[in-house]
């Protein structure tokens, strides 16, 4: 009997080995020549540019005459002018002045501060420049604006704040036309400058409805191109817009993507972090603004010089109400325009952190933002060693059958186990995400996660797979659900402002509280498997008008979701998701608008050395070497999507956009591309950047805090730094 069992096991094991030794499809990796980007590409906004304007920055447009020194804290001093609620901040380390408004000497044609082609300013504009806030409101459905000095009849009173840890002022503003009253607090503490407008202080005494508030729009303004500098915006991975007097349109974008509850859409990358920055004088003076509260209802605007005004200015607009079209019939031919009834209860809290010297650039801003996250416990220092590899594995999908749908396996548990055993000989740490591990196949079954699918193998095989010491995450989507799936009730779907169910194609979005409840149930159900959870669709936030949940409240609920399981993983990170243990699909590009001058890796720099962040699946790279170099430059780890079967089986399923994934054909590329990136990043896995220099277009020098230097040459020609040669389309690590 025993011999019989032995022979059977031997025969069966042959069946396991044979598929792996029999390379029927001999995919010899054809070595392709890397195509280096053209010079015009390297000098476009796709890459960071060489800093050429190193003039010393001076700002003759602001001074402290007529300003009263309220106090100093740390290295900053606060000056205040009661008459118009404007203030000046002096950075005592560099003696540089920042101001919320500016002098009007330049308007005189003979002044040395006047430039040819200046728009100038009439009295009305001068008042606007000096106003601390600009309010937009709805009168019926018409949008109007008012600032503090629009008509000279608005009332305001202020009192100073002088304390050991707080220096500034508090003011009550009463706008005459709109009859809106609110409280404004501007103060310094040991961290930096803070501006607050609590929601509870806003009173609408008249019949008009508050729409939005612009906070100190001209703080940090730069006239024309007199001061070399730029505004940093967290568009995608990060972008810079320099003050070159050449831009002809403004930049406006809402933080954290469009609000589906208000029927907004976009096809551009989102603003990923609740921040922006201004540099005046490269490596001289800068500040980073962080929106502590209200970011999801905030809009970032950068208005360059010669677009309406002579000043480059960057500011935030907080939106309280919007108007919308209410359709009255199915065919959408009859509609009326209405204004949102209840305003979003958001507290405005904006903080400015001042930087100087070597920190006065986007890298310094990233490190400052990183330090704030470290304080909050969101980031933890990584350990040194080899970098991990991430694999997305599609287990099963469903296809239309004769009647209904049929679930078929794309990868079996056994096969995945073998893949892990094969890869771990080359790679220390694997992080694996399973998609379609549930019984309905990947697409069309969210949020119905009942049990592991049987088509990929038996329970024993699953247990064998889960015994591995590498981290496995189960993908779950409790927010975006398929309309035909069973796991939700119609009453759990969120509603947009026009009382329509929020949907995208055939998928509905659930109310945040319902999603959290589902996740808690699912975590309990699958907790004894001991695997992590990958949460999908967390980057879509929307105002739910069924439960009157604002996007800010949804963000709080999402943060709770990240606490439900011990190990969480998210994809396409936004600021509020950085608490997750593993981050996938980190952006490597910005929206590439032509008014951008550079793309900078702000988001990866924030995570560098403190979080495992992976780029998008390398299967879909078209210029592989260029993208891998970008990953080394930005400190992102490689990720691949694999399946056991060839990807043409995914045609006519919900995953047909995965056009290449067969492990057999990707095996060699996975290992070689992993080593390409690891051979650079393993020396700096736990390090942060000290300096990022662009020595020539497409030639980057990254200097890390542990002394390692990595050169990256994207271009098609060799570059030298001293006597170190870096070949075209390659990198060099100097230890």
């Amino acid at each position, binding site marked *: 009997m025993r011999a019989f069992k032995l022979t059977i096991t031997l025969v069966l094991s042959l069946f396991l080995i044979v598929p792996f030794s029999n390379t029927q499809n001999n995919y010899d990796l054809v070595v392709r020549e890397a195509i280096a980007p053209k010079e*015009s*590409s390297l000098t476009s906004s796709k890459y960071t540019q060489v800093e050429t304007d190193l003039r010393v920055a001076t700002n003759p447009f602001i001074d402290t005459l007529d300003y009263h020194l309220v106090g100093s804290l740390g290295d900053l001093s606060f000056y205040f002018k009661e008459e118009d609620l404007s203030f000046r901040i002096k950075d005592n380390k560099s003696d540089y002045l920042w101001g919320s408004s500016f002098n009007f000497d330049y308007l005189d044609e003979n002044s040395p501060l006047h430039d040819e082609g200046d728009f100038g300013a009439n009295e009305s504009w001068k008042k606007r420049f000096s106003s601390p806030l600009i309010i937009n409101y709805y009168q019926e459905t018409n949008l109007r604006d008012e600032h503090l000095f629009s008509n000279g009849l608005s009332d305001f009173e202020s009192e100073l704040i002088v304390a050991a840890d707080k220096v500034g002022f508090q003011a009550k503003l009463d706008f005459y036309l709109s009859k809106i009253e609110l409280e404004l607090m501007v103060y310094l503490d040991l961290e930096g400058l803070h501006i607050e407008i609590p929601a509870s202080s806003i009173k609408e005494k008249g019949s008009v409805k508050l729409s939005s508030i612009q906070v100190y729009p001209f703080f940090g303004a730069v006239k024309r191109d007199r001061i070399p500098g730029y505004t940093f915006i967290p568009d995608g991975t990060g972008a810079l817009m320099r003050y070159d007097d050449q831009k002809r349109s403004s930049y406006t974008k809402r933080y954290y993507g469009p609000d589906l509850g208000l029927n907004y859409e976009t*096809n551009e990358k989102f603003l990923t972090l609740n921040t922006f920055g201004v540099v005046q004088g490269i490596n001289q003076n800068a500040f980073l603004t962080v929106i502590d509260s209200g970011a999801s209802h905030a809009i970032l605007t950068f208005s360059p010089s010669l677009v309406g005004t002579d000043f480059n200015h960057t500011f935030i607009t907080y939106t309280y109400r919007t108007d919308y079209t209410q359709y009255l019939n199915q065919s959408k031919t009859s509609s009326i325009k209405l204004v949102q009834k209840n305003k979003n209860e958001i507290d405005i809290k904006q903080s400015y952190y001042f930087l100087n010297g070597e920190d006065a650039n986007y890298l310094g801003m990233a490190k400052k933002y990183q330090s704030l996250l470290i304080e909050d416990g969101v980031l933890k220092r990584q350990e040194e060693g080899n970098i991990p590899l991430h694999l997305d594995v599609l287990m099963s999908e469903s296809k239309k059958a004769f009647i209904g749908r049929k679930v078929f396996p794309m990868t079996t548990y056994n096969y995945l186990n073998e893949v892990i055993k094969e890869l771990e000989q080359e790679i220390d740490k694997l992080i694996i995400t399973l998609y379609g591990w549930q019984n309905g196949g990947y697409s069309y079954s969210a949020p119905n996660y009942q049990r592991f699918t049987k088509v990929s193998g038996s329970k024993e095989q699953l247990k064998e797979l889960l015994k591995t010491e590498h981290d496995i995450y189960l993908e779950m989507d409790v927010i975006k659900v398929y309309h035909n799936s069973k796991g939700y009730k119609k009453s759990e779907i969120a509603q947009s402002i026009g009382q329509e169910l929020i949907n995208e194609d*055939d998928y509905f979005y659930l109310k945040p509280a319902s999603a959290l409840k589902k996740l808690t149930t699912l975590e309990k159900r699958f907790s004894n498997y001991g695997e992590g959870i990958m949460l999908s669709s967390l980057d879509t936030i929307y105002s739910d008008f069924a439960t009157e949940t604002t996007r800010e409240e949804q963000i709080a609920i999402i943060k709770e979701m990240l606490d439900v399981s011990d190990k969480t993983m998210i994809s396409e990170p936004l600021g509020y998701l950085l608490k997750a243990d593993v981050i996938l699909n980190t952006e490597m590009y910005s929206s590439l608008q032509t008014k951008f001058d550079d793309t900078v890796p702000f988001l990866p720099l924030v995570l560098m050395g403190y979080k495992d962040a992976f780029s998008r699946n390398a299967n879909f790279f078209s210029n592989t070497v260029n993208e891998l170099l970008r990953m080394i430059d930005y400190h992102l780890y490689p990720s691949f999507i694999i399946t056991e079967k060839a990807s043409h089986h995914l045609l006519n399923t919900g995953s047909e956009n995965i056009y290449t994934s067969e492990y057999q054909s990707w095996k060699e590329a996975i290992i070689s591309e992993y080593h390409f990136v690891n051979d650079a990043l393993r020396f700096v896995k736990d390090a942060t950047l000290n300096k990022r220099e662009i020595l020539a277009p497409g030639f980057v020098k990254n200097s890390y805090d542990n002394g390692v230097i990595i050169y990256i040459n994207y271009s098609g020609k060799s570059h030298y730094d001293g006597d170190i040669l870096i070949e075209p389309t390659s990198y060099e690590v100097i230890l």
Partner: protein
Amino acid sequence: MKKLTILFTTLFLLIIPIVIKGDVNTSAPYKTYTTGPSNKLIETQTAYEPAGNIKLNLRNPEDIYLKDEIIYIADTGNKEIIKYDLNLNIRTVFKTGFNEPTGVHVDENDQVYVADKGAKSIFIYDKEGNLIKQIERPKEPIFGNAPFVPLKVVTGPRGVIYVVGDGSTGGLIQLNQSGEFQGFFGANDTKMTLMQRLAKLFNVKSSKNIPVSPLNVAIDDKGSLYTVSLTEDKKLKKFNIASETILTLHEEENFNALLINDFNNIYALTTEGVIYEYDSFGQLIFKFGGKDTGTRRLGLFVNPVALALDKDNNIYVLDKGLSEIQILQKSEFTALIHEGLEAFKDGIYDLEKWDEVLRMNGMFGLANSAIARAEFRNHNYDNSLSYYKIANDKAGYSEAFWQLRYNFLQANMLIIIIVVIGLVVGFKALKFADGKWQIYAPLRKGKAKLNKFKLVRELKLILNIFRHPLDTFYEIKKEKKSSYLAATIIYISFIVVMIFSDYVTAFLFNNNDLQNYNLLRTFLLLAGLLILFVGANYLVSSLQSGEGFFKDIYLSTAYALAPIIVFTPFLVLLTHGLTYNESFIYSSLQSITIAWSLILVIVMLKEVHNYTIKELIINILLTLFAMVMIVVILALLYLLTNQLYEYVMGILKEVFVYARV
């Protein structure tokens, strides 16, 4: 209703990719598509990435031409021709003083041709800018009253000049180097409406259709011409020297510029900013690009009007709206495909390269058909067969299948003959045995037992239809030899056979989209059609004093479908052994079966209602008319009910909204 909308929206969305949550992850602001299996558009790696732009202080430029790393630009607004050296990045003015230069071209001797719309002339300059010739309106009498307003110009071998003229409905204007008119070339087709066709039939004069004039032209290295026009179909055409169309391509959007590269790939630009790249056979390789939505992103266009290619096949797009040239750089993936295609042109089937392309995109149609062709050449016919199937290349599949079948027959002919002879002998022996020893007796007893059931006798009537149709119909009508149950069973078998045929017909002869096949819908459609016919005929016949009752029509029609029911399964099985070479066998057999059934239906009508020939014809026409009317009325009813529903819902919603407000 909602399900229908969802169905239609999903279908709609499947065809047109709508970007709601956009391209959050790629290095280009557009997705790139290629042809996948079943000619479906599938996503693929970015083929061309935006690589910056060239700003040259242009004003409403209309055309560019790239030769030897120098771009010539027709700067129409500034009335001059600009030269830009790509290597040195130097901009120079080539020539000023034009009226409205809209087209520029450079021939192999570096002579520059400028089409000036305002001056209605073609100017020819040498390299240094000296005027060689100014060609004005041809004076040859055969040119007639045709207008001469040159928009674009290209030159072909032996100095022939082709001019795209505004309003030149005769096609391209062909001139020689001296400016002498040689004829019109490449006119577009016109489509005659039904009225015009009828008029032509009866030799009655009707208004003539004027063809659309071509919009732009390109020429390949062999001298074949390609034009794009704003026609309703065949928007892009390739001509041979006899001005006959040898290749046509058509897309939703309107083409406005095109270019042919060294290995005869066609690059076509549309007004929507979408760029198509086809191979020399007209198969779509890449589709990408798009229009800017207001935020001016790198890689999107405002008003693209012309294309150029450099020696590495990077694309330069002239954007009239932005007055600049955008550069799209070829990716490594595209380089791989181009290398494979270039090898094709030399007759080399590089399996390794195409394997690598397939590795990068398992569904890449071109790679699959290339590998299929390569395997075919290497005599690996079964491999070739599977790749042809994925590439949905039926012609290739047929050839590979032919080879496989030939090899199979060659190898097994002897065995097949032996088996067939054996079977025949065996049956004869059994029959002989039956004669002697009655071995079939139990079978005969079983048969007799079955015949006792009325239903079985009724169903067996089907077989009589083949030999004695008229008698059978008579028996059904007068002698009550059938019943509702039997007929319903026959109808259901008919539907089952049709669905069976849809599913089981071999790949070569099956034109159904099995992936999206809606079983319920087909069933309802066929059942509805049958009921419609029977019902309409009954209504019409009762008005026409036909003798048949409803029962007679219902029952007899079922039996008339007998040929289809009986023969289709055999036909379906036959398709699994045929190739396109024998497709006439399949199609003729299929036609015979259908014709037979139709004839039976007509005969049935005559018999059941006892009509004369004249009455029969009227009956058939009226039945068809009645069927159409019934469908129209049902559709109307549905629409009206829908409207009513929407109206009521609309009122309720309005009340609700106003009550809230």
